[in-house]
């Protein structure tokens, strides 16, 4: 009971910490900005993978689409994109953006990225969301890699050499801090929207699809429509996150950054599972733990970090599939308002943790 009373204060405290954090730890602000984006990745993956039970390896496509669309829009508004990409690596012309152009590009680029990602989800979702289980998982894996290969071969967006977002004018100031607040705002909005969404009828419907799709369909739910909508919501936020990530990292590598590869595409799945699939807070916790682990291993295990990442995936998936939230819920069920009878958890909690 007492947990609910402190909830608004807790939310405010987290946002307050988020706002002052870059001033307290300026050395880590780009990592912290990345962390807020990771929270968005994990939350949006969990909407489809955890709450709806459709384990997708292809959500990274929306991230990549958002990333490329945003940067292409930022550049394309003022200069021809192909000339801009051709000048990379010290061409004769230098492309500069003044403050108005930069902000204008961002104000148009981010929504364009979100819109294109959402449309991609609509188009792909109507095609692939009819599949179930492992066929869906592997199909989305194929989509993610195909998108990476296409971006890798497409001259107009820089092909294999990737694309560099426009240089920020000096008036922007500290670039990581600038994008930190964008990322923070996006994470907070995403969290609140999903929190609201899970309390609505729509949230119940996607949970019903996870638990038994045939029954849900027999009960009169338009499952395909609901699934596509959920994927589109996921894609919308991922598209914005993609635009921010591209600008934050200052470089888009088609295979490593934008699409499948042992990077963001896998990380978002891993973060959601680590925190606990199908819970609201699980992905958030998973993202925080993962980012700390990642930065530590990037620092101390340089050269071997990807090997370690693979090992971490295997260990987590095989030995700890219920995630941190699932573990806590199993150990302390009364924190979540579940009654405990004779050592086993009564009610739906048990079922959820076993998923």
């Amino acid at each position, binding site marked *: 009971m007492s947990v609910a009373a402190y909830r608004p204060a807790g939310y405010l405290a987290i946002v307050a910490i988020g706002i002052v954090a870059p001033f307290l730890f300026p050395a880590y602000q780009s990592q912290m900005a990345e962390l807020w984006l990771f929270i968005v990745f994990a939350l949006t993956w969990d909407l489809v993978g955890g709450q709806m039970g459709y384990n997708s390896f292809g959500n990274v496509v929306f991230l990549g689409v958002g990333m490329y669309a945003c940067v292409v829009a930022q550049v394309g508004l003022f200069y021809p994109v192909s000339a801009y990409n051709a000048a990379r690596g010290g061409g004769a012309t230098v492309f500069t953006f003044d403050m108005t152009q930069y902000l204008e590009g961002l104000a148009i680029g981010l929504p364009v990225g979100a819109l294109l990602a959402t449309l991609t989800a609509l188009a792909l979702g109507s095609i*692939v969301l*009819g599949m179930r289980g492992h066929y869906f998982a*592997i199909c989305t894996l194929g989509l993610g890699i195909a998108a990476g290969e296409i971006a890798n071969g497409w001259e107009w967006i820089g092909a294999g050499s990737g694309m560099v977002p426009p240089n920020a004018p000096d008036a922007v100031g500290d670039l990581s801090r600038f994008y930190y607040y964008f990322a923070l705002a996006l994470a907070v909005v995403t969290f609140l929207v999903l929190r609201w969404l899970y309390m609505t009828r729509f949230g119940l419907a996607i949970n019903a699809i996870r638990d038994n799709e045939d029954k849900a369909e027999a009960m009169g739910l338009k499952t395909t429509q609901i699934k596509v909508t959920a994927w589109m919501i996921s894609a919308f936020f991922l598209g914005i996150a993609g635009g921010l990530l591209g600008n934050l990292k200052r470089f888009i590598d088609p295979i490593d950054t934008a699409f499948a590869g*042992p990077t963001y595409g896998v990380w978002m799945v891993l973060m959601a599972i680590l925190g606990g699939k199908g819970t609201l807070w699980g992905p958030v916790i998973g993202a925080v733990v993962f980012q700390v682990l990642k930065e530590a291993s990037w620092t101390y295990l340089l050269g071997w970090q990807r090997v370690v990442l*693979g090992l971490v995936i295997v260990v987590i998936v*095989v030995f700890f599939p219920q995630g941190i939230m699932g573990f806590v819920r199993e150990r302390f069920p009364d924190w979540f308002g579940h009654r405990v009878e004779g050592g086993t958890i009564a009610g739906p909690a048990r079922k959820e943790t076993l998923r």
Partner: protein
Amino acid sequence: MDNITILLEAPVITLDLVLNGLLIGALFALAAYGMALVWGVMNIINIAQGEFVMLGGYVAIVMGIAGIHPLFAVPVAAALLYAIGWALFHLVIFRVVDRDIFISILATFGISIVLQQLMNTLFGGNVQAADADLGTALFMGGMVTLAKIKLLAFALAVVLAVALVVFLRRSRLGQAIRATAQNTRAARVLGIDTYRVHAATFGLNAALCGACGALVAMAYTIHPYIGLPYTIRSFMIVVVAGLGNLAGVIAAGLGLGAAENIAGFVLGTQYQLAFVFLLLVVVLVWRNWRLARRRQYLK
């Protein structure tokens, strides 16, 4: 689309592409048959399939560097990969055999990342090949060129496939594997140690991939990230052919090899892999559409 007109006007180029495609298709079929075996027997889709191929390739390359003719790498790679597969089964795979399918996919995906990054760290990301030094065979006045090693690889792949079928039909272990594939519980009731059968199946699959990989390294090229395309091709071939259908697997493998080669010529080689992955999507959508139609008939 100038390339299409080239194909239409010069059928001999088409023939060249198709023949070369068929030759590599046999290698795809070999890896796919291993995947079908594991999928059928223990209901696991092994994403690390392509990484086994890649490991087999590096065995051939290491032997080539050591001065041993890489053809000897085929049995060596098979034996080594059998051991690796067996060890991986005892470390990880047996824990996910009866679990949710997504867990096994993700676990094998983790293994595939470990293997590919390990090889990347050890051997670097460069494209490498083992030189078997057999020369090229020319047909039709030099218009159709086939490397002899590709022909040899094709022949060896066929021999391996036949040997595998005979093994599964005749040997005690092969019979146990087939029994476990049909019904694991019944097999256990009848006294088959299904755990050992699973371990042997996984090892056998890895051995097949290893032999395939050694051939790939000689006939084509290998690099640490080559795995996933092989996994996807195997998966696609199995989906098209169905489980336990060797003729179908071979036909689908050869077809895929030819289609991929032609697509690589028409679209440009930089899109060849994209074609493979998009073809996977098309195949799965087609399968889904077919299933949906069948469901409607049942209504």
